[in-house]
């Protein structure tokens, strides 16, 4: 399992310097570290987080938006009618609740359909693994810089250390 601070350092190492989002238990360790480092801007909804990230990008930052995959639904209109048409990129660090059907009932539909949904709305995505973290981050940076659109890195349970609620 990856340590949260190592993963954040990895993100910073490829240029990400602005972090906002809405929490999830899978993202808890990362967010705790970001708060400790005073790097985190808490949002109240995922569409707001994407909008804050867009403003930060306009202001010269390279933004990351953290969210549970349920939040993708909330964020969809901003992603489509702002980011994708204005070529405003961000990294969507999305926790994959409902992976393989092993989660609470409210997560099962999104857990099963998330990658299809991302394909449909033309958001490139990749699933982070411990063994391929370096390659995953390189792919993220490359896609972000070349296409200038939101890129999603999906985070399953047990990849990055978290905190217990």
């Amino acid at each position: 399992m990856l340590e949260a601070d190592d993963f954040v350092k990895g993100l910073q190492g490829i240029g990400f310097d602005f972090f906002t989002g809405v929490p999830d238990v899978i993202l808890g360790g990362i967010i705790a570290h970001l708060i400790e480092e005073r790097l985190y801007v808490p949002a109240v909804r995922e569409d707001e987080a994407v909008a804050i990230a867009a403003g930060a990008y306009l202001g010269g930052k390279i933004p990351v938006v953290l969210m549970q995959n349920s939040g993708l639904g909330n964020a969809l209109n901003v992603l489509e009618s702002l980011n994708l048409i204005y070529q405003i990129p961000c990294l969507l660090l999305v926790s994959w609740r409902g992976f393989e059907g092993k989660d609470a009932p409210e997560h099962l539909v999104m857990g099963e359909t998330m990658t299809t949904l991302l394909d449909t709305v033309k958001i490139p995505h990749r699933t982070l693994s411990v063994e391929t973290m370096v390659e995953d981050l390189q792919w993220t940076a490359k896609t972000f810089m070349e296409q200038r659109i939101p890129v999603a890195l999906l985070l399953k349970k047990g990849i990055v250390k978290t905190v217990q609620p």
Partner: protein
Amino acid sequence: MIGPEEGVMQSRAQAMAAIFELLTDQLLIVCNGFPSREACKLRDRDQNFYMLGSMGAAAGIGLGLALAQPQKTVVVFDGDGNLLMSLGTLATIGALKPKNLIHVVFDNEVYGSTGNQPTYSRVVGLDKMAKAAGYVNVERVWEKEDIVYECKTMLADTGPSFLLIKVNEQLEEADRIALVPSEMTKRLKQNVS
């Protein structure tokens, strides 16, 4: 009998024009619909960014920009319909307290870009909500002299500031934004770097 506000209320375009007279190098985010069209027609500036879609996102974009560029003043032109869609952002701004953000809401109490369906701002005081959320300066105005006075004061003061401008429903004839969205991104980015 005409109420005290109705007799002297400005159109949104008149109120916007009064504010444009006061702006120098401030960055400006304008919400979608007719507000963007009117702002673009009245005074297109390299520092202007017009939202086409993403209704509700103007204040969030302005907040992100203000946090990323603390040395610059960021102004948001918002609407009552837009703000009501993202009331949570009042809490985010009120809590984070960016000193360089001025949130202007042109409140015509209708969804003016879709045929004047009423909004709740007729009965819900958006200024009171901003005050409760923690904005440092909050004012509610409708007359031109007051718009100018409060806006000048807010441009000089430490924010976040919230200026609720009660306007009438009149729309300015203004075409759709002709700028290409990705060019708007580049234009603003060049202006802040």
